[in-house]
């Protein structure tokens, strides 16, 4: 019961309280770039959930059983980025061959994720917070769910303000940034939820 409670706390804190985009500023490029339409935002969100959860598992496995016992702690940045890049390639090939329907839905987003700092950020946060393997997977899942919540919310807002009368100079990216700022204020309300 206690482990269940701590895992739930990890998910809530990584998804809402320390939202990866709105309070940690990681993964902003897809957040601003892929949020024009809700369905692409959902696709990106699902792909990110998939990749971050998987990479959290693999990186924490490798950190725990290969890097840590051999005193290669300082190699974690290099090791993790290579693992993530290889993993994304592998997932792409696997999906293409075995689950073509899923590949058609997520395929476009997978290459974009390799250079997304949220994935590397989640892997490094797991190590720095001293999480075990199970906790890392749940932290990764929470982080990615937080990303999906934020990007889907932003894309719905963008769709509904598209035809609004926006001051000429604020059209395009400025209004998106202001929207994200207001969302960040809203998400600040979650801080203090977990003490």
């Amino acid at each position, binding site marked *: 019961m206690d482990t269940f409670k701590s895992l739930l706390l990890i998910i809530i804190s990584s998804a809402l309280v320390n939202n990866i985009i709105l309070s940690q*500023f990681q993964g902003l*490029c897809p957040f601003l770039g*892929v949020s024009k339409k809700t369905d*692409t935002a959902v696709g990106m969100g699902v792909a990110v959930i998939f990749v971050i959860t998987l990479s959290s598992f693999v990186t924490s496995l490798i950190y725990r059983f290969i890097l840590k016992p051999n005193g290669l702690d300082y190699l974690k*940045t290099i090791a993790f980025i290579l693992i993530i890049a290889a993993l994304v390639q592998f997932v792409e090939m696997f999906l293409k061959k075995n689950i073509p329907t899923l590949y058609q839905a997520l395929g476009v987003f997978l290459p974009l994720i390799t250079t997304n*700092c949220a994935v590397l950020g989640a892997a490094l946060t797991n190590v720095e917070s001293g999480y075990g393997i199970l906790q890392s997977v749940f932290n990764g899942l929470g982080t990615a769910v937080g990303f999906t919540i934020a990007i889907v919310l932003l894309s719905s807002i963008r769709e509904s303000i598209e035809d609004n009368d926006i001051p000429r100079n604020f059209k*395009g990216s400025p209004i998106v*940034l202001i929207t994200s700022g207001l969302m960040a204020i809203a998400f600040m309300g979650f801080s203090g939820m977990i003490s």
Partner: protein
Amino acid sequence: MKKCIDRIYNGIIRENPTFVLMLGMCPTLATTTSARNGLGMGLTTMAVLVFSNLIISLLRNIIPDRVRIPAYIVIVASLVTVVQLLLQAYMRSLNDALGIFIPLIVVNCIILGRAEAYAAKNGPLESAFDGIGMGLGFSLALMCIGMVRELLGSGSVFGYTIIPEEYNISIFTMAPGAFFVLAGLTALQNKLKLPSATNNGDNGSVLACGGDCMNCSGSACIANHAMIETRRLQAEEDALAAKQKELAARQEALSGKLDRKDE
């Protein structure tokens, strides 16, 4: 020598990575809570950028073309590790302030972008100066944003108090303030019609990443290039088919006319 000075001018003014190219937004927003942190992040990135440009330029004829992106990533990641260890040893406070954003320099698009766009094609000296220019441009931009946020949020610049505490708008040092400052900046660029990645309008691209290939790096562009290529071929084929149809129709009309003439 003239070329080297031109690279520095290019990095600071003409292709400023933050204001003009809009690259590396994550550290730009996250580490500019004060002018000092912004400058620290900029200089750390600059150190990595100069050496990565230099090394990649020296190795540009040795690295096979097909594995160049992984090779660049390994070089950059090694340099980032070196810089991180140096900061941990000699500049503890900056290391703690920047936190996870030091290892995340690896995925900063400026570094891979410059490696791909400049260092892979030019000599070591120019590439190193390109790194210095870009790094200085990034540092200056981060310092400016940091100064604005620090002045509005905590009423000081580089730690020297200018505005008394009761007039501070503390939200500017928090997360939402970063978005607002950047929004104001891009709106200003739109107003003045300054060259920037944000004010060339909606390019109407159907690609997931927005199709901004010029400012993109990493493997995203490889997949998307393949997609663009197939689309282009498809469009060409369609155009050809349409032309043939038109030609056939014309021929038919012409033969019809001839028939009528014969009659």
